[in-house]
């Protein structure tokens, strides 16, 4: 047979194979979509039978965020302190507590990521809008979620703003930074930050949103918590580190309800609380 004809036959066979695989893929997608819709409906029904209302649109698909390992970076930490305090003298106080001293004030940084920078006479800030303060923290290499900003006022004056930090656009639920003010002067910055840039670490896959909600329901029932409505379910992280500075970012699900936020461990399904 002519070579050209053989090629034609192969092309036709391959086209048929491609069409079959495409059809199988599309059927699979449709089936998955139907199954997902049914799972959502079942989940909403289960929650409803326990007195918890939830709109189906609350459930969104997210990929696995992955776990990360974090080791303390003293150089980076010094740079953070010097962004606010200028050139600093560094004192090792022991127990992995470092003190950064400058004429402007003092910074204390702990191995577990907690820190406080206290300014002797404050730094006047011309713009104290949430966006400007987030940008100020950005200069300190601390990414924060704009929507998480909680401002407090003393009379008409701004007294503090608190942010939740972020890693790769996802919130770190237990790393919060507070900036406090007196007469529009920045007087202190304190809270918890990542001790360095996280590096990917091996871990079990993150539980999906459905498993997270079932775990949440079981924990709510076990602890006799009161909750009437789930308003959002979003993924994020929790950061834990030891005194030595080695830590880990672990995936969490944040379940926002009418009575507050609950956090479900993305690996174990256990519920945790992160103090405000």
């Amino acid at each position, binding site marked *: 047979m002519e*070579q*050209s004809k053989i*090629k*034609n036959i*192969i*092309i036709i066979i*391959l*086209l048929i*194979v*491609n069409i079959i*695989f*495409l059809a*199988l*893929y599309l059927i*699979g997608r449709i089936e998955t979509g139907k199954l997902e819709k049914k799972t959502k409906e079942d989940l909403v029904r289960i929650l409803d039978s326990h007195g918890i209302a939830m709109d189906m649109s609350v459930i969104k698909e997210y*990929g*696995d965020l*992955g*776990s990360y*390992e974090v080791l303390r970076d003293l150089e980076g930490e010094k740079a953070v302190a010097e962004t606010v305090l200028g050139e600093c003298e560094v004192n090792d*106080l*022991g*127990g*992995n*507590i470092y*003190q950064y001293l400058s004429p402007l004030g003092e910074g*204390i940084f*702990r*191995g*577990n990521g*907690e820190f*406080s920078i206290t300014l002797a006479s404050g730094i006047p800030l011309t713009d104290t809008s949430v966006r400007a303060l987030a940008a100020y923290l950005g200069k300190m290499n601390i990414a924060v979620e704009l929507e998480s900003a909680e401002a407090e006022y003393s009379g008409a004056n701004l007294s503090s703003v608190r942010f939740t930090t972020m890693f790769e656009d996802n919130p770190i639920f237990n790393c919060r930074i507070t900036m406090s003010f007196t007469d529009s002067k920045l007087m202190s910055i304190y809270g918890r930050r990542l001790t360095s840039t996280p*590096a*990917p*670490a*091996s*871990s079990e896959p993150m539980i999906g949103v459905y498993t997270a909600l079932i775990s949440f329901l079981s924990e709510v029932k076990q602890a006799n918590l009161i909750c009437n409505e789930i308003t959002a379910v979003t993924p994020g992280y929790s950061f834990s580190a*030891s*005194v*030595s*500075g*080695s830590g880990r970012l672990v995936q969490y699900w944040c379940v926002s309800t009418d009575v507050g936020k609950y956090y479900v461990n993305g690996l174990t399904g256990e519920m945790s609380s992160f*103090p405000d």
Partner: protein
Amino acid sequence: MKRYWETGKTVLIFLLIASAVFLAGKTGYFDEFIGSAPALSRISGWLDSLKGSAATPAPAGGELSFAEAAKPVYAVVTGIGGHHCGIKYDSAQLSAFYSDTSNILGEALGSSSSPQEISEDDWRDALSSAGIYFDYLNPLPLSALTRWLVGSEISHWDARHSARRICISGSDDGDVFLYYTDSEGGFYRSQTAVQYSSLAECMAKYLPNNTQYAFEFGEDFNNIDPYTLIMPGTGRVPMVGSSNPVYDRIPPDKILVGFEMNPNLASQYQEMGAVVYMMENCYLRLYDSGLAVYKATGETGERLKIKYSGGEPGLNELLEGARSFVLNLVGGTSGSAELYYTGHSFSSADGSVTFTFDYFVSGIPVRLMDSPHAAIIKISRDAITEARLCFRSFSSSGAFTPALPDLQAAVLAAGEGGEPVLEYFESGGGVLSPQWTSR
């Protein structure tokens, strides 16, 4: 023209093959096949990495790593008003307390100034002031504790410094001090760089539960150890079952491998309720009760060497070597029990060190029927030369068994003196019985 047409067909064939492979992968029908073929799974992994969803394993560190060989079994959080929240006989609460406070303990040990001897009254004042208290039930070398928690050693904690009871307490001016009692009965204090706000944040999580130290009861308990912790509502403890996991959960071959003995080369024979495995220069007797007794009878070579850095292994490195050896063998089958270091002794005759480890369930020590300790490890220079391990598997169903409450036990102990300590006793029936002993 025809040549171009033919080349186009060839290119189209390759494109259609690639498209078919891609679509076949997307259908999910061939996932199992891809997973079973190493070359294909590598391609699959590569594709995943392109999508950015793969996690790379964390790099392994070449340094010696140290882990806690013991954790506190009694704990107290004292609020600003001097009221205590005691924690005993509850593994979940002890674990939560340790998670909340181990960072502060590490920082306090790591940043402490040289310890100064203080009076017993100062120590009692510290216990009554706002702070946190740890009781390990047995003295621990402070250098080892610092190494576990901070990752490095502090020069002023040497072999002389050990503590069973540690208190971290704040003063009125915001300074935070580390207090401890040593094994000789002395009381010490060091200044630390811990921030009072860290301590206060931890204290805020615990509400008082009317726990008291024996000395706070006044003359009633003058006879017993003044730092005995008396907690109300302690009339029951978890019901715990024990069984021998050898053969069922850990085969003898695995135990031999744990002792770095080759099961295929070891000769074996039966002797008085035990199987004896012999190799050149060592033997292992494995009793039916779950007791394993190892002895090196000559030059050990590379067998059971302890990892260390520098010229000679330090106490902390020997302890870590013993801990990891014991945990590797006994820890995997211990179930709901924790295995804690409980002491060490030096032999002046041959310069060896012997470490002991015991099982603890919910912070309550377990007294075994067949052995004084869960593990006894003798290390000569840098190798384990003798070991006695009692394999046990403990299970706790969530049910409780009655136990004489702390207060009544203290009243009874007041006549004899000493320190009343609640322990689990193994009596052979498969269920541990809680009993009070006097130390």
